């Protein structure tokens, strides 16, 4: 009753509301069609968003990095100091981390052994996250060890590890990374530890984002590699990210397409229902016209009926999609609250908007037909 009194000031809307109440089952079924359409559009859209966010999260910071190693046509066994300087020149604000690497076996006090890869570099904090101890911007002495390795061998902060006959104190424990790049035992030492190795094995550039990484990769490629020569091999995951993004975008469009089809089906159902109900009420509408109700007023009344179906269906559909979104994010990302992000909420609004638009569009023809039916013909039945 409160809805009716609020709409009292709009006679077309009020009449529409009453008319829909006359055949509740028909109204409910027509609305159900719209609900299904909205749920199809909105929840498929939200599922797409969830997939995309999940893929991006899995790729982690890897997409922001560029890795440079000596190429096939390099005259040296690795990346030279001059080349590193050149890269620094091209990298702008991005951190440039030249690295030397090797492998070794670490032995614990009780004789347990573990194979680790050794990375010698200076700019430790640019590449690693440390869960305990410190994470020096410039690693001049001491060592960092992956947390899991330390646990396995019973090493603690401050314990010495031996490499190439020299002892290094463990200053920090590296957090095991999630994502593709993580895992593996790693010992990080100052560059001096591998001083006898003349060239760098690789240079990692950490950019602010994927786009910047791609730009830097392209710049290096253009500068050092002439024609088909590959002096330096430049690897960037930004392009991988782009490929994944474009695949997911296509997938999203396909999902939206499927959703739209169900909304088209729903609006055909609305067209049918509206047409049926105006034909049934032909005499009644004739009476309205006879007693002086204008054509535009009849038109608005029937359009309002269609709009009501759309609004009710849209609201219910958006609510159901929201629930579906909670489940999807819980399953894919383990965090249902992510559904509140604009990216997914957007699809609820799109679904709702489409529902109202499609319903009003479907109502146009029946409304126009009813409004322009000559009253004499309509009254004759």
């Amino acid at each position, binding site marked *: 009753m409160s809805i009716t009194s609020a709409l009292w*000031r709009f*006679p*077309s809307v009020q*009449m529409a509301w*009453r*008319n829909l*109440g*006359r055949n509740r089952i028909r109204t409910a079924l027509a609305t159900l069609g719209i609900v299904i359409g909205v749920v199809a559009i909105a929840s498929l859209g939200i599922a797409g968003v969830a997939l995309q966010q999940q893929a991006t999260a899995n790729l982690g910071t890897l997409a922001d990095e560029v890795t440079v190693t000596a190429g096939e046509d390099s005259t040296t066994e690795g990346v030279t100091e001059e080349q590193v300087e050149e890269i620094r020149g091209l990298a702008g604000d991005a951190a440039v981390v030249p690295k030397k690497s090797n492998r070794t076996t670490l032995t614990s006090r009780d004789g347990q052994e573990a194979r680790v890869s050794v990375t010698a570099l200076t700019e430790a904090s640019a590449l690693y996250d440390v869960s305990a101890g410190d994470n020096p911007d410039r690693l001049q002495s001491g060592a960092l060890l992956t947390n899991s390795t330390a646990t396995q061998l019973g090493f603690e902060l401050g314990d010495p590890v031996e490499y190439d006959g020299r002892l290094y104190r463990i200053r920090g424990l590296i957090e095991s990374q999630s994502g593709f790049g993580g895992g593996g035992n790693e010992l990080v030492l100052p560059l001096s530890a591998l001083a006898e190795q003349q060239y760098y094995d690789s240079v990692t550039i950490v950019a602010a984002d994927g786009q910047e990484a791609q730009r830097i990769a392209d710049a290096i490629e253009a500068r050092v590699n002439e024609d088909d020569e590959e002096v330096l091999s430049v690897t960037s995951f930004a392009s991988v990210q782009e490929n994944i993004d474009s695949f997911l975008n296509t997938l999203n469009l396909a999902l939206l397409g499927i959703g739209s089809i169900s909304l088209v089906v729903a609006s055909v159902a609305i067209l049918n229902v509206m047409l049926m109900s105006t034909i049934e009420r032909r*005499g*009644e509408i004739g*009476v*309205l*016209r*006879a*007693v*002086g*109700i*204008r*054509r535009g*007023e009849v038109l608005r009344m029937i359009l309002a009926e269609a709009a009501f179906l759309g609004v009710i269906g849209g609201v219910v559909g958006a609510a159901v999609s929201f629930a579906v979104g909670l489940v999807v994010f819980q399953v894919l990302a383990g965090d249902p609250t992510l559904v509140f992000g604009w990216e997914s909420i957007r699809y609820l609004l799109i679904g709702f908007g489409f529902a109202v638009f499609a319903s009003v569009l479907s109502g146009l023809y029946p409304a126009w037909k009813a409004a322009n039916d*000559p*009253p*004499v013909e309509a*009254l004759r039945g």
Partner: protein
Amino acid sequence: MSVIELEGVVKRYQSGEEVIEALKGVDFHADRGEMVTVIGPSGSGKSTMLNMIGLLDTPTEGTVRLDGRDVTNFTEDELTEERRSTIGFVFQAFHLLPMLTATENVELPSMWDTKRDRHDRAVDLLQRVGLGDRLSHTPSQLSGGQQQRVAIARALINEPEILLADEPTGNLDQDTGRTILEELTRLKEEENIAIVAVTHDEQFVEYTDRVVRLVDGEVQS
């Protein structure tokens, strides 16, 4: 001056090859405070003539005058405005809207006039036709005679000059028909309106001021 006037009105219907001439040059007029009854055999053109008077349909030939103004060539939208302000309809089949109460049905013709609130007049009219205790009943909760009285109140809501009734007692028994006729006669005087009624009902002749006999699309004198 007559409220409504038909002059040489001809109405032809094209149905397939055949042309049916439902009205063959009818002259007619009705004045305020007068009840005119139109009688005639089935198919003689009574309803067709009433539609012309009610501005629901336009003649093929001839002139329709409302309050002395020629409305023959009015557009549908102009005719709608005239119907709204000047004419009230009562139908044989009542034609009340089932989802509205008696009061709302009476208010219906003025419903889209948000500037004027006709609620009080609707209640007053219902009380005058003896339905003061049925204000919020829906049509399905009313008898045929009660429904027709709601329809009469609805026809009067916009203070019309003419009330048109096509077989208003056709769906009612004799006694109920009589009360409706008494109602109409009383309202005719109270509201000073012209009533034009089409009927087969012999009782009408008692209450009517003038009888117009229509035979085969022509007025018999």
